[in-house]
Protein backbone atom coordinates (compact mmCIF):
# COMPACT_ATOMS: atom_id res chain seq x y z
CA UNK A 1 0.00 0.00 0.00
CA UNK A 2 2.80 2.32 0.97
CA UNK A 3 4.51 1.58 -2.35
CA UNK A 4 1.33 2.31 -4.27
CA UNK A 5 1.03 5.55 -2.38
CA UNK A 6 4.54 6.55 -3.38
CA UNK A 7 3.82 5.74 -7.01
CA UNK A 8 0.64 7.80 -6.92
CA UNK A 9 2.17 10.87 -5.29
CA UNK A 10 5.38 10.64 -7.27
CA UNK A 11 3.42 10.73 -10.53
CA UNK A 12 1.46 13.75 -9.38
CA UNK A 13 4.61 15.53 -8.22
CA UNK A 14 6.27 14.85 -11.58
CA UNK A 15 3.33 16.42 -13.44
CA UNK A 16 2.79 19.38 -11.11
CA UNK A 17 6.45 20.30 -10.78
CA UNK A 18 6.83 20.08 -14.55
CA UNK A 19 3.86 22.35 -15.13
CA UNK A 20 4.88 24.88 -12.46
CA UNK A 21 8.42 25.16 -13.80
CA UNK A 22 7.45 24.97 -17.48
CA UNK A 23 8.09 28.62 -18.34
CA UNK A 24 11.21 28.78 -16.17
CA UNK A 25 12.59 25.73 -17.98
CA UNK A 26 11.83 27.28 -21.35
CA UNK A 27 13.50 30.50 -20.31
CA UNK A 28 16.70 28.84 -19.13
CA UNK A 29 16.73 26.46 -22.09
CA UNK A 30 16.28 29.15 -24.75
CA UNK A 31 18.54 31.68 -23.03
CA UNK A 32 21.20 28.98 -22.65
CA UNK A 33 20.93 28.30 -26.36
CA UNK A 34 21.34 32.02 -27.09
CA UNK A 35 24.39 32.29 -24.82
CA UNK A 36 25.94 29.31 -26.59
CA UNK A 37 25.26 30.81 -30.01
CA UNK A 38 25.98 34.51 -29.67
CA UNK A 39 26.90 34.60 -33.38
CA UNK A 40 23.23 34.23 -34.31
CA UNK A 41 22.20 37.35 -36.16
CA UNK A 42 18.96 38.01 -34.33
CA UNK A 43 20.78 37.91 -30.99
CA UNK A 44 23.29 40.59 -31.93
CA UNK A 45 22.21 44.06 -31.05
CA UNK A 46 24.00 47.34 -30.54
CA UNK A 47 23.31 48.85 -27.15
CA UNK A 48 21.78 52.30 -27.07
CA UNK A 49 23.23 54.84 -24.62
CA UNK A 50 21.10 57.60 -23.12
CA UNK A 51 22.98 60.23 -21.13
CA UNK A 52 21.61 62.74 -18.67
CA UNK A 53 22.67 65.05 -15.86
CA UNK A 54 20.74 64.95 -12.61
CA UNK A 55 21.02 67.01 -9.43
CA UNK A 56 22.03 65.11 -6.30
CA UNK A 57 22.73 66.00 -2.71
CA UNK A 58 25.63 64.63 -0.68
CA UNK A 59 24.50 61.44 1.09
CA UNK A 60 24.69 61.04 4.84
CA UNK A 61 26.41 57.67 4.43
CA UNK A 62 30.20 57.68 4.43
CA UNK A 63 30.97 54.29 2.88
CA UNK A 64 31.03 53.89 -0.91
CA UNK A 65 28.23 51.34 -1.05
CA UNK A 66 25.94 53.34 1.24
CA UNK A 67 26.53 56.49 -0.82
CA UNK A 68 25.73 54.59 -4.03
CA UNK A 69 22.47 53.33 -2.52
CA UNK A 70 21.56 56.85 -1.41
CA UNK A 71 22.25 58.30 -4.87
CA UNK A 72 20.18 55.50 -6.42
CA UNK A 73 17.25 56.49 -4.23
CA UNK A 74 17.65 60.15 -5.20
CA UNK A 75 17.78 59.28 -8.90
CA UNK A 76 15.01 56.68 -8.64
CA UNK A 77 17.23 53.93 -10.02
CA UNK A 78 16.55 50.34 -9.07
CA UNK A 79 18.63 47.27 -9.77
CA UNK A 80 21.67 45.38 -8.57
CA UNK A 81 24.71 47.48 -7.70
CA UNK A 82 27.41 45.79 -9.72
CA UNK A 83 30.50 47.76 -8.88
CA UNK A 84 31.23 50.77 -6.71
CA UNK A 85 34.33 52.83 -7.47
CA UNK A 86 35.71 50.14 -9.76
CA UNK A 87 37.37 51.65 -11.70
CA UNK A 88 38.11 54.60 -9.43
CA UNK A 89 36.15 57.69 -10.45
CA UNK A 90 38.06 60.25 -12.49
CA UNK A 91 38.30 63.77 -10.97
CA UNK A 92 36.25 65.87 -10.46
CA UNK A 93 33.92 62.92 -9.77
CA UNK A 94 33.82 61.49 -6.27
CA UNK A 95 31.76 58.35 -6.81
CA UNK A 96 31.26 55.88 -9.64
CA UNK A 97 28.95 52.91 -9.66
CA UNK A 98 27.03 50.75 -12.08
CA UNK A 99 23.59 49.25 -11.62
CA UNK A 100 22.56 46.12 -13.45
CA UNK A 101 19.16 45.04 -14.64
CA UNK A 102 18.63 42.31 -17.20
CA UNK A 103 17.97 44.62 -20.12
CA UNK A 104 19.98 47.67 -19.16
CA UNK A 105 22.96 48.85 -17.21
CA UNK A 106 23.10 52.27 -15.57
CA UNK A 107 26.47 53.94 -15.00
CA UNK A 108 26.53 56.83 -12.56
CA UNK A 109 29.36 59.29 -11.89
CA UNK A 110 28.77 61.80 -9.14
CA UNK A 111 30.43 65.11 -8.42
CA UNK A 112 29.24 65.97 -4.92
CA UNK A 113 30.91 69.41 -4.89
CA UNK A 114 28.74 70.53 -7.80
CA UNK A 115 25.81 68.31 -6.79
CA UNK A 116 25.62 66.69 -10.20
CA UNK A 117 25.32 63.07 -11.28
CA UNK A 118 26.19 62.04 -14.83
CA UNK A 119 23.94 59.13 -15.69
CA UNK A 120 24.45 56.85 -18.67
CA UNK A 121 21.78 54.22 -19.30
CA UNK A 122 22.92 51.50 -21.67
CA UNK A 123 19.95 49.61 -23.04
CA UNK A 124 20.36 46.28 -24.79
CA UNK A 125 18.10 44.58 -27.30
CA UNK A 126 15.36 42.22 -26.20
CA UNK A 127 17.29 38.99 -26.80
CA UNK A 128 20.38 40.24 -24.96
CA UNK A 129 18.18 41.15 -22.00
CA UNK A 130 16.40 37.84 -22.25
CA UNK A 131 19.70 35.93 -22.28
CA UNK A 132 20.95 37.93 -19.31
CA UNK A 133 18.11 36.52 -17.24
CA UNK A 134 20.11 33.30 -17.41
CA UNK A 135 23.12 34.89 -15.72
CA UNK A 136 21.71 37.76 -13.67
CA UNK A 137 21.50 35.81 -10.41
CA UNK A 138 25.13 34.78 -10.52
CA UNK A 139 26.78 37.78 -12.17
CA UNK A 140 26.18 39.88 -9.07
CA UNK A 141 28.22 37.51 -6.93
CA UNK A 142 31.09 36.72 -9.27
CA UNK A 143 34.03 38.55 -7.86
CA UNK A 144 35.45 39.65 -4.58
CA UNK A 145 33.32 41.53 -2.06
CA UNK A 146 30.27 41.23 -4.26
CA UNK A 147 26.87 40.17 -3.03
CA UNK A 148 23.26 40.39 -4.08
CA UNK A 149 21.87 43.70 -2.89
CA UNK A 150 18.61 43.93 -4.85
CA UNK A 151 15.62 42.01 -3.59
CA UNK A 152 14.64 40.97 -7.12
CA UNK A 153 17.94 39.16 -7.72
CA UNK A 154 17.67 37.59 -4.27
CA UNK A 155 14.22 36.21 -5.13
CA UNK A 156 15.42 35.19 -8.59
CA UNK A 157 18.37 33.29 -7.12
CA UNK A 158 15.96 31.41 -4.82
CA UNK A 159 13.90 30.54 -7.92
CA UNK A 160 17.05 29.31 -9.68
CA UNK A 161 17.83 27.02 -6.74
CA UNK A 162 14.21 25.84 -6.65
CA UNK A 163 14.29 25.11 -10.37
CA UNK A 164 17.51 23.10 -10.07
CA UNK A 165 16.13 21.11 -7.13
CA UNK A 166 12.79 20.72 -8.95
CA UNK A 167 14.56 19.33 -12.02
CA UNK A 168 16.47 16.85 -9.86
CA UNK A 169 13.20 15.82 -8.17
CA UNK A 170 11.50 15.37 -11.55
CA UNK A 171 14.43 13.27 -12.79
CA UNK A 172 14.36 11.00 -9.75
CA UNK A 173 10.57 10.75 -9.98
CA UNK A 174 10.73 10.03 -13.71
CA UNK A 175 13.30 7.27 -13.22
CA UNK A 176 11.15 5.75 -10.46
CA UNK A 177 8.05 5.84 -12.70
CA UNK A 178 9.94 4.22 -15.57
CA UNK A 179 11.17 1.43 -13.31
CA UNK A 180 7.55 0.60 -12.40
CA UNK A 181 6.78 -0.19 -16.08
CA UNK A 182 8.41 -3.60 -16.50
CA UNK A 183 8.08 -3.87 -20.33
CA UNK A 184 9.97 -0.58 -20.70
CA UNK A 185 12.90 -1.53 -18.51
CA UNK A 186 15.18 -3.01 -21.15
CA UNK A 187 15.08 -0.13 -23.63
CA UNK A 188 15.14 2.30 -20.71
CA UNK A 189 18.31 0.77 -19.35
CA UNK A 190 19.91 1.14 -22.78
CA UNK A 191 18.90 4.84 -22.99
CA UNK A 192 19.98 5.63 -19.44
CA UNK A 193 23.28 3.80 -19.89
CA UNK A 194 23.99 5.63 -23.14
CA UNK A 195 23.28 8.93 -21.40
CA UNK A 196 25.46 8.03 -18.41
CA UNK A 197 28.38 6.87 -20.54
CA UNK A 198 28.32 9.87 -22.87
CA UNK A 199 27.95 12.31 -19.98
CA UNK A 200 30.65 10.60 -17.89
CA UNK A 201 32.99 10.90 -20.86
CA UNK A 202 32.90 14.67 -20.50
CA UNK A 203 32.61 14.94 -16.72
CA UNK A 204 35.34 12.50 -15.71
CA UNK A 205 36.52 10.74 -18.86
CA UNK A 206 38.35 13.60 -20.55
CA UNK A 207 40.40 14.32 -17.44
CA UNK A 208 41.29 10.64 -17.11
CA UNK A 209 42.05 10.21 -20.81
CA UNK A 210 44.14 13.32 -21.31
CA UNK A 211 46.22 13.46 -18.15
Amino acid sequence: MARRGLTYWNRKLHIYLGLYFLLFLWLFAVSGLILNNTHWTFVKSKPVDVRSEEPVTTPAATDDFGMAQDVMRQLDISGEIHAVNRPRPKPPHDLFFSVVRAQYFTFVQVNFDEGVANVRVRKWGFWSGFARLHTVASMSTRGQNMFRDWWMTKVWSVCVDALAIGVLAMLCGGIYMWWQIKPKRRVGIVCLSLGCVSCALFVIGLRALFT
Partner: protein
Amino acid sequence: MKAFYRWTRDLHLWLGLFLSPFLVVYAVSTILINHNATPGRDAPEETSGPVLVVVPDEEDRIRLGRDIIAQLGITGELGGVRRMPAQQKIVIPVNVPGKRQVVTVDTTTSLATVATKSPGFLSGLVYLHFAPGQHLVGISGNWFWMRLWHWMADATVYVVLFLTASGVYLWTVLKAERKVGLICLGAGAVSFVVLVCGLLF
Protein backbone atom coordinates in the same frame (compact mmCIF):
# COMPACT_ATOMS: atom_id res chain seq x y z
CA MET B 1 -4.31 9.38 -32.21
CA LYS B 2 -3.56 6.51 -29.89
CA ALA B 3 -0.38 5.73 -31.83
CA PHE B 4 0.69 9.39 -31.57
CA TYR B 5 0.09 9.31 -27.83
CA ARG B 6 2.13 6.11 -27.45
CA TRP B 7 4.99 7.44 -29.55
CA THR B 8 5.05 10.70 -27.63
CA ARG B 9 4.99 8.87 -24.29
CA ASP B 10 7.77 6.51 -25.31
CA LEU B 11 9.95 9.28 -26.73
CA HIS B 12 9.35 11.34 -23.57
CA LEU B 13 10.57 8.35 -21.58
CA TRP B 14 13.57 7.33 -23.70
CA LEU B 15 14.85 10.83 -24.33
CA GLY B 16 14.26 11.79 -20.70
CA LEU B 17 16.30 8.81 -19.52
CA PHE B 18 19.11 9.55 -21.97
CA LEU B 19 19.22 13.19 -20.99
CA SER B 20 18.93 12.75 -17.22
CA PRO B 21 22.70 12.59 -16.49
CA PHE B 22 23.22 15.80 -18.47
CA LEU B 23 20.42 17.49 -16.57
CA VAL B 24 22.03 16.39 -13.30
CA VAL B 25 25.24 18.10 -14.47
CA TYR B 26 23.37 21.32 -15.23
CA ALA B 27 21.24 21.25 -12.06
CA VAL B 28 24.13 20.59 -9.66
CA SER B 29 26.40 23.14 -11.35
CA THR B 30 23.56 25.68 -11.29
CA ILE B 31 23.37 25.42 -7.51
CA LEU B 32 27.16 25.77 -7.23
CA ILE B 33 27.25 28.80 -9.51
CA ASN B 34 24.24 30.38 -7.84
CA HIS B 35 26.01 30.23 -4.48
CA ASN B 36 29.31 31.41 -5.93
CA ALA B 37 30.92 28.14 -4.89
CA THR B 38 34.38 27.65 -6.33
CA PRO B 39 35.10 23.99 -5.71
CA GLY B 40 38.75 23.08 -5.77
CA ARG B 41 39.90 26.67 -5.58
CA ASP B 42 42.52 25.71 -3.02
CA ALA B 43 43.76 22.71 -4.98
CA PRO B 44 47.56 22.66 -5.08
CA GLU B 45 49.28 23.97 -8.16
CA GLU B 46 52.18 22.02 -9.60
CA THR B 47 54.71 23.65 -11.83
CA SER B 48 56.86 21.70 -14.26
CA GLY B 49 59.58 22.70 -16.68
CA PRO B 50 61.20 24.73 -18.01
CA VAL B 51 61.17 22.92 -21.35
CA LEU B 52 62.67 24.25 -24.56
CA VAL B 53 60.03 24.81 -27.26
CA VAL B 54 60.04 26.21 -30.76
CA VAL B 55 57.87 29.33 -30.86
CA PRO B 56 56.32 29.35 -34.33
CA ASP B 57 56.01 32.53 -36.34
CA GLU B 58 52.22 32.36 -36.24
CA GLU B 59 49.78 35.24 -36.12
CA ASP B 60 46.73 33.14 -35.30
CA ARG B 61 46.69 32.74 -31.53
CA ILE B 62 44.88 29.42 -31.55
CA ARG B 63 47.34 27.87 -34.00
CA LEU B 64 50.22 29.33 -31.99
CA GLY B 65 48.84 27.87 -28.77
CA ARG B 66 48.06 24.50 -30.37
CA ASP B 67 51.56 24.23 -31.79
CA ILE B 68 53.25 24.99 -28.47
CA ILE B 69 51.07 22.71 -26.31
CA ALA B 70 51.54 19.89 -28.84
CA GLN B 71 55.31 20.18 -28.32
CA LEU B 72 54.70 19.81 -24.59
CA GLY B 73 52.38 16.83 -25.02
CA ILE B 74 49.41 18.72 -23.60
CA THR B 75 45.92 18.67 -25.02
CA GLY B 76 42.69 20.42 -24.14
CA GLU B 77 40.55 23.45 -24.85
CA LEU B 78 42.58 26.61 -25.28
CA GLY B 79 41.44 29.69 -23.40
CA GLY B 80 42.41 33.22 -24.37
CA VAL B 81 46.02 32.89 -25.60
CA ARG B 82 47.85 36.09 -24.70
CA ARG B 83 50.96 37.51 -26.30
CA MET B 84 52.63 39.83 -23.83
CA PRO B 85 55.44 41.58 -25.72
CA ALA B 86 56.24 43.94 -22.84
CA GLN B 87 56.87 40.99 -20.52
CA GLN B 88 58.34 38.95 -23.37
CA LYS B 89 56.10 35.99 -22.78
CA ILE B 90 53.15 34.08 -24.19
CA VAL B 91 50.52 32.73 -21.82
CA ILE B 92 48.41 29.78 -22.95
CA PRO B 93 45.61 28.52 -20.69
CA VAL B 94 44.52 24.94 -21.45
CA ASN B 95 41.39 23.46 -19.92
CA VAL B 96 40.04 19.96 -19.58
CA PRO B 97 36.91 19.68 -17.37
CA GLY B 98 38.28 19.48 -13.81
CA LYS B 99 41.84 20.36 -14.78
CA ARG B 100 43.52 23.61 -15.75
CA GLN B 101 47.01 24.10 -17.12
CA VAL B 102 48.69 27.38 -17.87
CA VAL B 103 51.69 27.29 -20.19
CA THR B 104 53.99 30.29 -19.97
CA VAL B 105 56.61 30.69 -22.66
CA ASP B 106 59.51 33.07 -22.21
CA THR B 107 59.95 34.41 -25.74
CA THR B 108 63.55 35.45 -25.14
CA THR B 109 64.75 31.98 -24.10
CA SER B 110 61.93 29.85 -25.68
CA LEU B 111 61.56 28.06 -22.35
CA ALA B 112 58.09 26.96 -21.33
CA THR B 113 56.80 26.24 -17.84
CA VAL B 114 53.51 24.52 -17.12
CA ALA B 115 51.41 25.25 -14.04
CA THR B 116 48.83 22.51 -13.45
CA LYS B 117 45.86 22.68 -11.14
CA SER B 118 43.27 19.93 -10.72
CA PRO B 119 40.29 21.44 -8.91
CA GLY B 120 38.36 18.23 -9.49
CA PHE B 121 34.94 16.84 -10.29
CA LEU B 122 32.64 19.66 -9.11
CA SER B 123 34.82 22.28 -10.72
CA GLY B 124 34.54 20.26 -13.92
CA LEU B 125 30.75 20.48 -13.70
CA VAL B 126 30.93 24.27 -13.37
CA TYR B 127 33.36 24.45 -16.30
CA LEU B 128 31.02 22.37 -18.48
CA HIS B 129 28.07 24.57 -17.47
CA PHE B 130 29.88 27.67 -18.71
CA ALA B 131 31.03 26.00 -21.94
CA PRO B 132 30.69 27.23 -24.59
CA GLY B 133 28.92 30.24 -23.07
CA GLN B 134 28.91 33.82 -24.22
CA HIS B 135 32.61 34.54 -23.82
CA LEU B 136 35.59 33.68 -26.04
CA VAL B 137 33.43 33.80 -29.14
CA GLY B 138 35.41 32.50 -32.09
CA ILE B 139 37.87 30.81 -29.76
CA SER B 140 35.71 28.37 -27.82
CA GLY B 141 35.28 24.92 -29.26
CA ASN B 142 38.87 24.78 -30.51
CA TRP B 143 39.30 21.25 -29.12
CA PHE B 144 37.29 18.42 -30.68
CA TRP B 145 35.90 17.16 -27.37
CA MET B 146 34.69 20.57 -26.27
CA ARG B 147 33.19 21.17 -29.70
CA LEU B 148 31.34 17.92 -29.17
CA TRP B 149 30.20 19.19 -25.75
CA HIS B 150 28.95 22.38 -27.41
CA TRP B 151 26.78 20.29 -29.67
CA MET B 152 25.61 18.26 -26.70
CA ALA B 153 24.75 21.46 -24.83
CA ASP B 154 22.62 22.66 -27.76
CA ALA B 155 21.08 19.22 -28.17
CA THR B 156 20.24 19.23 -24.45
CA VAL B 157 18.20 22.39 -24.98
CA TYR B 158 16.31 20.97 -27.95
CA VAL B 159 15.56 17.77 -26.07
CA VAL B 160 14.43 19.73 -23.00
CA LEU B 161 12.06 21.70 -25.24
CA PHE B 162 10.71 18.44 -26.61
CA LEU B 163 10.40 16.89 -23.14
CA THR B 164 8.47 19.86 -21.79
CA ALA B 165 6.20 20.14 -24.83
CA SER B 166 5.52 16.40 -24.87
CA GLY B 167 4.99 16.50 -21.10
CA VAL B 168 2.32 19.16 -21.54
CA TYR B 169 0.65 17.06 -24.24
CA LEU B 170 0.71 13.93 -22.04
CA TRP B 171 -0.80 15.93 -19.17
CA THR B 172 -3.65 17.27 -21.32
CA VAL B 173 -4.67 13.69 -22.08
CA LEU B 174 -5.06 12.97 -18.35
CA LYS B 175 -8.47 14.46 -17.62
CA ALA B 176 -8.23 13.78 -13.88
CA GLU B 177 -5.12 15.95 -13.59
CA ARG B 178 -6.38 18.93 -15.54
CA LYS B 179 -7.70 21.06 -12.69
CA VAL B 180 -4.69 20.87 -10.37
CA GLY B 181 -2.40 20.94 -13.40
CA LEU B 182 -3.95 24.18 -14.61
CA ILE B 183 -3.53 25.69 -11.15
CA CYS B 184 0.17 24.71 -11.13
CA LEU B 185 0.67 26.00 -14.67
CA GLY B 186 -1.11 29.26 -13.79
CA ALA B 187 0.83 29.73 -10.55
CA GLY B 188 4.10 29.10 -12.39
CA ALA B 189 3.13 31.51 -15.17
CA VAL B 190 2.15 34.28 -12.74
CA SER B 191 5.34 34.00 -10.68
CA PHE B 192 7.37 33.80 -13.89
CA VAL B 193 5.80 36.89 -15.45
CA VAL B 194 6.11 38.94 -12.24
CA LEU B 195 9.77 38.03 -11.77
CA VAL B 196 10.83 38.39 -15.39
CA CYS B 197 9.08 41.75 -15.78
CA GLY B 198 10.66 42.92 -12.52
CA LEU B 199 14.12 41.96 -13.70
CA LEU B 200 13.70 43.23 -17.24
CA PHE B 201 11.85 46.52 -16.95
